[in-house]
């Protein structure tokens, strides 16, 4: 895919960052408004789609590192989600051990945490995971398209089968 005109690229430079802000807003307020981890994560992942459309695959794919998306985002989100679920195992798996009833007084460190308890953190963990996963999907499919353009498959693709 070829880069688009300078107008589009400048617009993208400006607006793509707002997608991240908007997505993060949706993720962290996911426990009490419409939206949540998945929707916010999907919006954050559009950042990469914006860049790919505006700058073209060649340039953007040389910028991104899939390892970061895979390990920093996807794995971190998954492990956080799992650990949060596991921490409640004194009562049961997925038990919301940080929650308190509506209107109850919260003191000390607990007053910093929303009454929704682990739901907030789980929503953030899901947001991180979905950001990584959807960005990886976009990158992988884009690389797939680029492979058709070339004369043959790259070296590591051959030899996958024996």
């Amino acid at each position, binding site marked *: 895919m070829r880069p688009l005109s300078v107008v589009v690229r400048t617009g993208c430079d400006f607006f793509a960052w707002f997608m991240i802000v908007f997505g993060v807003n949706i993720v962290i307020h996911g426990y009490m408004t419409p939206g949540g981890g998945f929707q916010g994560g999907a919006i954050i992942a559009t950042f990469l789609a914006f860049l790919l459309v505006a700058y073209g695959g060649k340039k953007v794919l040389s910028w991104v590192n899939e390892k970061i998306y895979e*390990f920093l985002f996807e794995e971190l989100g998954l*492990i956080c989600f799992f650990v949060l679920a596991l921490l409640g195992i004194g009562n049961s798996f997925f*038990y919301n051990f940080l929650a308190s009833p509506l209107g109850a007084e919260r003191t000390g460190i607990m007053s910093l945490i929303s009454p929704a308890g682990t739901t907030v953190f789980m929503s953030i963990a899901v947001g991180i995971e979905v950001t990584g996963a959807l960005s990886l999907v976009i990158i992988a499919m884009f690389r797939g398209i680029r492979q058709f353009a070339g004369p043959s498959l790259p070296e590591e693709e051959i030899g996958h089968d024996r």
Partner: protein
Amino acid sequence: MNWNEHLPALLLALPLLGAFLAPLCSLGGKTVRNAMFMAISFLTLLVAFFLWRTVLAEGIQYYVMGGEGSRLSLPSGMAVPVRIILEVDALSAFMALCGAIASFAGALFSLNYMSRFTGLSRFASLYLLLTAGMLGMMITGDIFNFFVFIEVSSIASFGLIAFWRDRPAAVEASFKYALISQVGSMFILVAAGCLYGRYNMLNMAAIGSALQMGTMEKLALVFLVGSLAMKCGAFPMHMWLPDGYAEAPTGVTCLLVAVSQASLYGLARVCFSVYGIAIGSAFIPWMIIVFGLASMFFGVAMAVVQHDMKRLIGYHSVSQVGYMLLGLGVGLLVLGDPRAMAEFGMTAVTGGLFHAFNYTMYKALLFLAAGAVYYATGKRDLNDMGGLARKMPYTAVMFLIASAAISGLPPFNGFVSKLLIYESSFAVHPFLAVVALVTSVLTLASFVKVFQTAFLGPEKGVLAGVREVPPAMLAGMAVLTVVVLGLTLFPSWSLSNVAEPAARALVDQSGYIGAIMGGGM
């Protein structure tokens, strides 16, 4: 803390954790990844075994996700369960044990079988995800979660069937499976929506306690039976099954066999525990019986003409699934009639379920042996093989045991379960038993042909350099062989301790409902 109480959740949490950890572990190299893969598979098997022992000793176990206590199914004043509940009765534990054994054997086999390919961290991840989805289908007590787990297992299996993505046939098989299973899952979701719209509940036990047959329920039942029969490979919708089984890497095929049994479990659970006697007319039972007969006969008829070893065994899967459908259908037909139920209904259900266990073991073993032959020779066409018994004695012996078991030769475990099905289906109509017998004979003929062509006969010149497969692959097959031989040597023990509790749990609808609806602690 009492870990026994948390066993149902651990059974799902362990493979899921493994699936998440696999990419991280593969940063540490091949040894770390393989160690993690094997450790998680083995621990899952252990948990499944302990869960099974616990259920047999203490009755139905259930687990409330996110509840104040894991046994609080009806929190203060609620008339219906609102949380996600895992419910494990003897049938679920029995199927989960069977699935966990197949998963462990497949993982052990894959260690060597897959070692020369790239992308193994994804393989381990998807394999454990498939295990988690399969076990989830078997132990969930919630119809919407059943859909979620069916989708988890389907998505993992699309990826695994197309793992050798540079083979056109694998990609095509995966696409075919993806389409069919997606349509099937959407039907299940529609059925869940119908039931939810009617009762405002998703818990299977709660729906079962309130169920009154009406239009919506009939619609939901038809959707559920149709799509689950499709997912377990009954005759008119079977075309994905031989393709998918033949093209997937062999360790995965071993697990896919168990996954199709999870769909069969879902079919049994919906028909017996949710609908039960309320199913009313004989239409659905006869539909299941006809599905079974058609799968049995046409599956074996198409298997006889195959040349590709794994495809041939795949078509035999279609015909073997027919036996279980026949057994369950006969049981469902006489569910409302206590006298007939005592006379042959229980026998039919026991036979069907015992056959499901036996089938998973010997069919997985057959696939692994076929994969071992492919690994050693690089050939899948039967016409290119010959005289392998001298080169690969262990594989040959294990293949022989498995083919004797699938053909229902008398001392083997396949014979026990088939005999129960013949006896009980004969009581309904002799024609059913005749079809089952003819199928069995054709199966025997087909496997005599396979064994004779591949392992006996003159040695082919091109196969001179063939050697026995590495030890981990043999160990994977040996696990299943030990189970098959154990079931063979102690038929009365395995019937009374393995199959009959499961069958009693399946027909005991009030027990299944009462465990959840009967109150909190």
